[in-house]
């Protein structure tokens, strides 16, 4: 079964997947994604929900979205401090 994900979460899961795939050459992408989703869910960054088609899907949690927004703002501020 395919892991359905909304856009923001998919981006970060793909990033994480690229990051760890070298350490796990025997695992398929699907298996890596499953592992990442599970870690994200346990620490409260990803959550399951029913999408508009009534299928169980995954999305970034409100906490994760807030953290992303904070980091984006910090990065922008840091950039603005450069002459």
């Amino acid at each position, binding site marked *: *079964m395919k*892991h359905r994900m909304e856009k923001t979460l998919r981006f*970060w899961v793909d*990033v*994480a997947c690229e*990051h*760890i795939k070298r*350490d*796990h050459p025997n*695992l398929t992408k*699907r*298996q*890596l994604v*499953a*592992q*990442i*989703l*599970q*870690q994200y*869910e*346990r*620490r*409260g960054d990803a*959550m*399951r*929900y*029913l*999408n*508009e*088609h*009534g*299928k*169980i899907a995954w999305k970034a*949690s*409100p*906490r994760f979205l807030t*953290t*992303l927004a904070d*980091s*984006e703002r*910090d*990065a*922008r501020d*840091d*950039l603005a401090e450069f002459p």
Partner: protein
Amino acid sequence: MTNFEGMPSYFWLASSRVKEPIQDELPYGTQALRQDLLRVRNAWEECQASRKRDAIYTYLTAVFDLVAWWVAEDRALEHAHKALRLQRICPFDGEEPFAAIIRCTADPTKVDKRTRSKWSRMMRYALRYKSHSEPLDQFVKRKGGINKCASRFAKQLGKGPVVSCSRRKGHYTDL
């Protein structure tokens, strides 16, 4: 546009080593359940801190969304009772999932048994008749409000109309 280059390594992944056997199905463990309950409790705090009239829908939507996917997985009762046990609350006989999650996430001094029952009936009505794409608050308002939805659900079960209610200051006894 998001500047991902500036993001801390936190976002990449906490651990690059897979320590557990890989499964195809993703189990929903205790820690994941705790996180879900924490999110619903945060929604409760948020709606309590808000002065907006419709703030309660933030909380009701959080409860509804959580139980809805449990129902889709056909494990709602199991997860809801586990949630109660995690809070060291004993499940009532026949306590259904929406009521159980309200009991372990909302302040019991503000949400009494009758309100819990009414919200639970409203959500069971929405679960049955709402399309997946329509937000809960829109659906409920379109159907005449929380009381009306609860009443419709009760009528379907042949229990007759539900007592009409009014909101008391600071409490949801009769929203």
